[in-house]
C-alpha cells in the first residue's frame, strides 16, 4: 500500500522537453512509472523517447491519455501558471518540483487549486516515490526499497540520506514524500501524516522538518491528538543563525520563532522519537517496527 501515488497513477510531465524534465522523465519511465504524456507548448504532436506523446496543453493530455497526476519541471516564472493549468484540466494530484517560484504567485494560485479540488505537492520539493511502484519527481529510485515506513520531509538530499540508511539496513518504505522547503506549499506535514495514518501499508512514520515557521509544531500537535502509529522525527538547522534564509525560502528563523529547539521540544512533547543524527533513524525505526 502507499499514499498519493500507486498502480493507478497516470502521469503527465509538464515541461517534459526541458533539461530537468527530460532527464527525470527518463528516470521515472525507467523506474516503471506510468508516464502517459508530456506537455511542452509548441511541441504538441511530437513524442518523447519515441513513446510518450507530447501535447501543447495539459487539457489535451488529459483528454487523450487519461492522465490523473502531473509533475511540473518548468521555469519559476511559468510554474504557478502550470499549476493552474493542471488544476484547470482536472488533474487531482499535482507535484511541482520547480524551485524559486515567487511566494506571491503561490499565494495567488493556491486558492484556485483548492477550488478545483486538487492536491498540490510542493513547490520546490523532490516529489515522492512509492518504492517498486511509481516515482513522481526526482527522488533517486535506487536508494529506496518497498516496505512499511512512511517518510515525509521538507528537504531533498537530506531525505535521501535518511532513506539510504533505512534501505541499507533492510528497512523498506511505503511512500517517501518531499513536501518542499518553501513558505507556501500545497501539502503540509499534517496532510501527509493523515494519509500515512490511514494507510494500512504504513507502520512507522518518519518526519523530517527544519527551522522556520510552525508546521512541525502543528504536526506534533496533530500526532499527539490522533496518530496511533509510532513517529520518528528530525529537525535540521540547530546551528542556523537567526534571520538568515538557509537555502530554502522557508528555512528562516524569524525573531525567536521557528527555531530547531522549539520544534524538537514540540516533537518530544508529542511522543515523537527525535533523531539527533540522520543515522539514528535506523535504530529508532527498527525499535518501533518490531513493536
Amino acid at each position: 500500500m502507499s499514499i498519493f501515488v500507486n498502480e493507478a497513477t497516470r502521469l503527465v510531465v509538464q515541461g517534459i522537453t526541458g533539461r530537468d524534465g527530460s532527464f527525470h522523465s527518463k528516470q521515472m519511465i525507467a523506474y516503471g512509472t506510468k508516464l502517459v504524456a508530456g506537455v511542452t507548448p509548441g511541441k504538441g504532436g511530437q513524442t518523447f523517447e519515441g513513446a510518450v506523446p507530447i501535447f501543447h496543453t495539459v487539457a489535451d493530455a488529459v483528454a487523450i491519455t487519461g492522465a490523473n497526476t502531473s509533475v511540473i519541471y518548468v521555469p519559476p516564472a511559468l510554474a504557478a501558471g502550470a499549476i493552474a493549468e493542471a488544476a484547470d484540466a482536472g488533474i487531482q494530484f499535482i507535484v511541482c518540483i520547480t524551485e524559486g517560484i515567487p511566494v506571491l504567485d503561490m499565494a495567488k494560485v493556491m486558492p484556485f487549486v483548492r477550488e478545483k479540488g486538487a492536491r498540490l505537492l510542493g513547490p520546490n520539493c523532490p516529489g515522492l516515490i512509492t518504492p517498486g511502484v511509481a516515482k513522481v519527481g526526482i527522488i533517486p529510485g535506487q536508494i529506496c526499497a518497498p516496505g512499511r515506513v512512511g517518510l515525509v520531509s521538507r528537504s531533498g538530499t537530506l531525505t535521501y540520506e535518511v532513506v539510504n540508511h533505512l534501505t541499507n539496513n533492510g528497512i523498506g518504505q511505503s511512500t517517501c514524500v518531499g513536501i518542499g522547503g518553501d513558505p507556501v506549499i500545497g501539502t503540509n506535514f499534517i496532510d501527509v501524516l493523515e494519509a500515512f495514518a490511514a494507510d494500512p501499508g504504513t507502520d512507522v512514520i518518519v518526519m523530517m522538518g527544519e527551522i522556520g515557521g510552525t508546521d512541525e509544531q502543528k504536526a506534533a500537535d496533530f500526532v499527539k491528538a490522533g496518530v496511533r502509529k509510532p513517529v520518528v522525527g528530525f529537525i535540521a538547522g540547530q546551528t542556523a543563525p537567526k534571520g538568515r534564509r538557509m537555502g530554502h525560502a522557508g528555512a528562516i528563523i524569524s525573531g525567536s520563532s521557528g527555531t530547531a529547539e522549539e520544534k524538537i521540544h514540540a516533537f518530544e512533547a508529542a511522543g515523537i522519537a527525535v533523531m539527533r543524527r540522520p543515522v539514528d533513524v535506523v535504530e529508532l525505526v527498527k525499535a518501533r517496527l518490531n513493536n
Partner: protein
Amino acid sequence: MNLHEYQARSILRAAGVPMPDGDVASTPDEVEVIAARLGGKVVVKAQVHAGGRGKAGGVKLAATPKEARELAGKILGMTIKGLTVEKVLVVPTADIASESYVGLIMDRESQRPVFMVSAAGGVDIEEVAATAPEKILRLPVDPRYGLFPHQAMGLALFLYRDFAQARAAAGIMRQLYSVFIANGASLAEINPLVTTPAGAVLALDAKISIDDNELDRRPDLALLRDESAEDPSEVMARKAGLTFIKLDGNVGCVVNGAGLAMATMDLVKYYGGEPANFLDIGGSSNPEKVVNALRIITADPNVKAILFNIFGGITRTDDVANGIVAATSQFKVNLPIVIRLTGTNQEKAFEILNGVGMRALSDMDEAVKQAVALAKEAA
C-alpha cells in the same frame, strides 16, 4: 532581500504614505547640506541591515547642521553587528503624540499576506507578541480580493479612537498593501506609525524585505541591492549561483541541498566542531560551482578544514569530483579536505579523486568526524 530604510522610504512615499522629508548621504558634507535644507533638529540614522541600530549608537539627534555633520562623521564608517555603515539617512525630528506598529508579512499558515498592527509601537513587536498578544490585531488578506476598504478601516480603528486619524491610517494600510503586492515583498513594516500633537498620522521608520524569488523578473528591485552592505563572500557566492551564509566556526562545508547542508552543520556541532558556513551548491553539479565554492571557503581565514558532503541524486558526484580536481589545479588549497560522496556515479567520482591521489568516504558521520578532528588539529 532587505531594503535599506531610505529605499523603503522612497517606495512608500511614492505610494503616498506620509513620511517626513529627508535624504540619504554618504559623507558628512552631504549630511550638513541636507540638515541645513531641512532646518531645525534632525536625526542621523545609520543605514545598515541590522536591528538595534539605536543601542549601537547608529542613530543620533543633532540640533544644528554642524552637529549633524559631526555626528555623521562618527556614524559613517562605524561597524554595527559586523556591518560597516556606508550611508546615513537624515530626517527632521517629529513631535510624537503616539506610536503604533503596522506590519504586513507573508504568512505561511494562512498562505496569505497578514497584517499585524498594534498601538504598542516603536518597540520590538516580537516582544509585544510574546508578552501582550491581545495588543496585536492580525488580519490575513486574500490576495484574490485585495485589502477591502472595511478591512483597512478595521485595522485603523484598532489603533485610533479619533476617526480622522483612523481614516488617515486606513489609507496608509491600503498604500502599504499596494506596495507589498507591487514589489513582491515578504515583509513591509512601518514602525513607528506616529501621531503628532497636531493630529497628523506619519510613518517615521519603514522596513521592506523583497522575496528573493521576485528578483529575477524584477530587475528594478534587484538594482536596490546594496552589495557594500553585505559580506563580500556572500556576494561572490550569489553571483556564482551558490547559497552561502558565513558563520563563525572553522569547518568549511560544501553540501548539495539546503536540508542536508543544515544537517551537516548540525552534525559538525554534534561531533564537537563548529561550522564555518552554510553552503548549498544546489541541484545542478556544474564543476565550476565547486571551484567557486572552494574559492569562497578558502578565502575565510577562520576555516581550518573543508568538508564536502554530497548525496548524488540530480547532482552527479563525478561532476563534483571533477570540480574538486579542477579547483586544486587552479589554486593552492592549503587546507585539509574531507570528501564524502555517495549516490549518482559514485564509482566514477571515486576513480577521478583516486587519480589525483585524493580519497573519498561514503559515510557522512565518518566524514564529519574526520573534518572536525582535522580542524581541531590545525587550530
